[in-house]
């Protein structure tokens, strides 16, 4: 294993400092609070990454949020559930768990616009929270049986003699292999394997009478395959590990990772039996990840931007108010635009979404829990948000006309750098 995946060793020119630790927390979570940053710096990078992967033993804020979950499920209100997810991202300590759940939500993109059942959507997201850092095979098996996914990709109408290919196609194209690693025949045969995989009484139900039990040939293998067999066959393809490794790299590290790095990470994924947590641990402590050219190399998604500002600057957040703002910025949780999810990176920014970002930043800046103005305030906020102090020219510019604390914070949040991860 190399190509940049070897563990990073800090040097004098690239120390384990605030910038490096903030970079790790921005990518592996939604940004570090001051105490979290200090704890990370008191440890080695590898230990800090380990903590992010395993999470804390105790997370009282998350427990509080879990306590209201049954009430929200009963209410079956989509926006209330969205607010709850945002509140988790802000307050839960196991930030990588929240971040990987968001990743899988974009990967297995399913929209409430068609599913229509907020509870189903919420339970699907629960699968990502519960299994997101576990084995991909188990996550895939759970999602394939998820009522929201079945409805989203029309597998309820996939029956013997009248197969519906939607799910099988997206399984190969978007969930496991990517374009070019399967053929049309594989799709139609896989669709037959998933016949009868439906929903009954809000649960996954295998309808024997609707299932095509005959032999199918999928990706060169022939047998009386059922859905689970197709999943096994897909996971056994070399392309699967590379496809997933590429997606993880583009989300957590770099918009255009080198092919050799993708292959190396694919090897890690394969060797760990598709253990996502362990694979991410390799990536997040790697030399490539901490390379200066990788830092601030991704455009923040609306969620990363808003939640990151709240966590790093210490904003008194109102999750319910953020939901419509995120929607306007182009990221409507529980409603990705299509089966491919959100394209991300530079696609997040256009004239309309930029304006909404700046306006949202204004609202956040006015709710700082500990507002600070002047040089001291600027230093504190810039180190929290950007992980560094500003250069003299920028400092002068931002401090001109002696801005109030909210204006200062807003100025920082409007900097292009504040929108980069």
């Amino acid at each position, binding site marked *: 294993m190399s190509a940049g995946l070897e563990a990073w060793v800090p040097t004098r020119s690239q120390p384990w400092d605030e910038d490096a630790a903030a970079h790790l927390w921005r990518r592996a979570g939604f940004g570090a609070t001051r105490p979290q940053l200090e704890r990370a710096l008191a440890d080695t990078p590898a230990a800090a990454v380990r903590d992010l992967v395993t999470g804390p033993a105790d997370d009282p804020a998350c427990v509080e949020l879990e306590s*209201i979950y049954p*009430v929200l499920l*009963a209410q079956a209100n989509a926006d209330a559930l969205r607010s709850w997810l945002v*509140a988790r991202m802000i307050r839960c300590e196991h930030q990588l768990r929240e971040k990987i759940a968001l990743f899988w939500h974009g990967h297995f993109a399913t929209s409430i616009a068609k*599913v*229509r059942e907020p509870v189903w959507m919420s339970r699907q997201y629960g699968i990502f929270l519960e299994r997101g850092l576990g084995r991909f095979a188990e996550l895939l098996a759970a999602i394939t049986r998820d009522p929201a996914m079945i409805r989203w990709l029309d597998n309820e109408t996939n029956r013997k003699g009248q197969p519906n290919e939607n799910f099988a196609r997206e399984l190969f194209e978007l969930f496991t292999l990517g374009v070019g690693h399967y053929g049309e025949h594989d799709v139609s045969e896989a669709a037959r394997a998933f016949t009868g995989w439906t929903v009954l009484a809000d649960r996954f139900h295998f309808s024997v009478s609707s299932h095509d039990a005959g032999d199918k040939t999928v990706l060169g293998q022939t047998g009386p395959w059922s859905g689970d067999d197709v999943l096994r066959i897909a996971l056994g393809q070399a392309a699967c590990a590379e496809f997933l490794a590429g997606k993880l790299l583009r989300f957590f590290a770099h918009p255009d990772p080198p092919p050799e790095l993708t292959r190396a990470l694919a090897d890690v994924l394969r060797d760990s039996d598709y253990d996502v947590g362990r694979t991410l641990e390799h990536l997040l402590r790697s030399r490539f990840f901490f390379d200066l050219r990788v830092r601030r190399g991704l455009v923040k998604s609306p969620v990363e931007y808003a939640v990151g500002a709240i966590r790093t600057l210490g904003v008194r*957040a109102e999750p319910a108010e953020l939901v419509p703002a995120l929607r306007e910025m182009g990221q409507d949780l529980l409603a990705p635009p299509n089966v491919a999810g959100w394209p991300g990176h530079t696609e997040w920014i256009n004239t309309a979404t930029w304006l909404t970002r700046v306006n949202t930043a204004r609202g956040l800046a006015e709710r700082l829990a500990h507002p600070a103005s002047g040089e001291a305030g600027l230093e504190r906020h810039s180190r929290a948000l950007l992980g560094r102090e500003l250069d003299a020219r920028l400092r002068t510019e931002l401090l001109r006309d002696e801005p109030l604390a909210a204006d200062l914070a807003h100025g920082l949040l409007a900097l292009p750098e504040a929108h980069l991860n």
Partner: protein
Amino acid sequence: MRAIPACLTLLCLTLGFAARAADTPAERLPGGATAYLELDDLAAAYEQLRASPLGEMLPNHPAVEAFATSPDGLKLRILRGMLYGATGQDAGSLLRSLVSDQAAVALYPGSRPGTPRWLAAVRARGDTIERLLLIGAIVFQWQRVDLVPASEGRAAVFGYGDKVFGFRDGDVWVLGSDRELVEQALRGPRRPLSRDPRIRAARARLPSAHTGFAFLDLEPFAARLAQVGKPPNIGAALLLGALAEQAPRAPWLALGAALEPADADLRLALSALIPTSRASRTAGEAFAGTLEPLPFDLGDRALGQLRLHRDVGALWSHRDDLIAEAGIPGLVTFETNFGVITGGMNLVEEFLPSLVGDVSIVATRASWGQGPAPLPRYPQAALLLRIREPAELAPRLAVGFQTLIGLVNANRSQNGQKPLLLGSETHDGVVVHSARFLAPTPAEMEGLRALPVRFNFSPAHAVVGEHLVLATAPDIVRELIDAHGTPPPETDAVNARLALRGSEVARTLEENREPLIAQNMLNEGNSREEAERAIGFVLDVARYIRGATLSHESLDGMARIDLQIGLGAPEP
């Protein structure tokens, strides 16, 4: 001869009253104000509130104690400390010394738009005002200047910088932002503001103006108010009635407030009054008149009642005049669909002419017994419309109800949502049609501690006496059937009324404590502890509210809205 002492007595009393009347602070303010506020005996009202059960509960409530230690609470404590240091009085004493009798303040047009001049007159004991002026002088660095020396019968006029001018005459202080206004007050205005005919007319029609009275001249805002459009939809038009047309054209607005004992409780009464120009013919047809008695007495079970005296047929006929253009297409669609749903009943030719009297909505708390209940737990509500020829219309309306449920089910099934099961029963000789959701699946209930929210709704329909009833649950229909009888007499000749029963509202809120806490955590970003404290405060205060009534009444040439809130000890 014996009449002479009586006449003399009467004369003395009149002179005494006249002398006293000229001496009231309000009499000092000259006419021409655009806004006016008068407070009478506010300190007494404050003491009454403080001594009430609610007033005794509040200072010791955990939420109030938590606020006291918060940053905002700290700022308030510092301010109180500063005032105490400067005046030697706590907040209550300060209030008593400032507004124990009467205080009046008025705004007058300034030299530039948006910069009004103010003038205030207050009867204040002791040297409180002087001390407050001194604080202002120190904080804002005002220089005190003696402007007009005292002369026989006239007080001296002083100024602080060019910001505050004033004089003291006995225990009446007059302060203002404009020297000319202050000197007018000193000379004694020929036409005091309190004798403005508009203000006198308003006071005569505001019974609840004992504690506070406010007047606002709306002429300066006429252009902006003229832009207020018609109600956006038929619901808003029904609710607002003639006020939608009258309020934007009103030349002035008066408000009155009183806090007074009512048996063992306290009653807070607020009123708003506007003069009304002659209503348009269409508004007159649709909205004029007063409520008729409603032959349903729910007694202690009633949570709330909204009653509107409306001619729905006239409103429909004149909808183009009374509703905004954007709200009309929806009505056209409704008219078409109504015929489809009711098997051909014509909305305009058959249904609307059958409606008589008032539009009423009543609500009661839903009771779930020992079984599972949904969360949130909504009250159940029923719409009541009095109809002519109920026996003839009942079957056709039943068909409409069943067809509507069928269409709803078709739509829900297409979207994979749970359908409703139709049913009917007979209760005390009345047929009740209803639709309910089937029991949730075990999978749906996983992780839930309550029924899903949709179980609050089991649409129901019946014709009870002369009333068409459309309800959110059959339970309330049965309650209405049981409560049907001789109507209690209408005590007030009002056009519209909303009444809430405090204890039932408090119980409803209590039943929804968990959803309210969850909502607070997500809306305000509070921790669970903070949310529990905030919601606990709301629920605890709600228990002290006996009830509230909001009503709209048309007087001769005026429209008045009255809000009455009863405060008392919580019911057991």
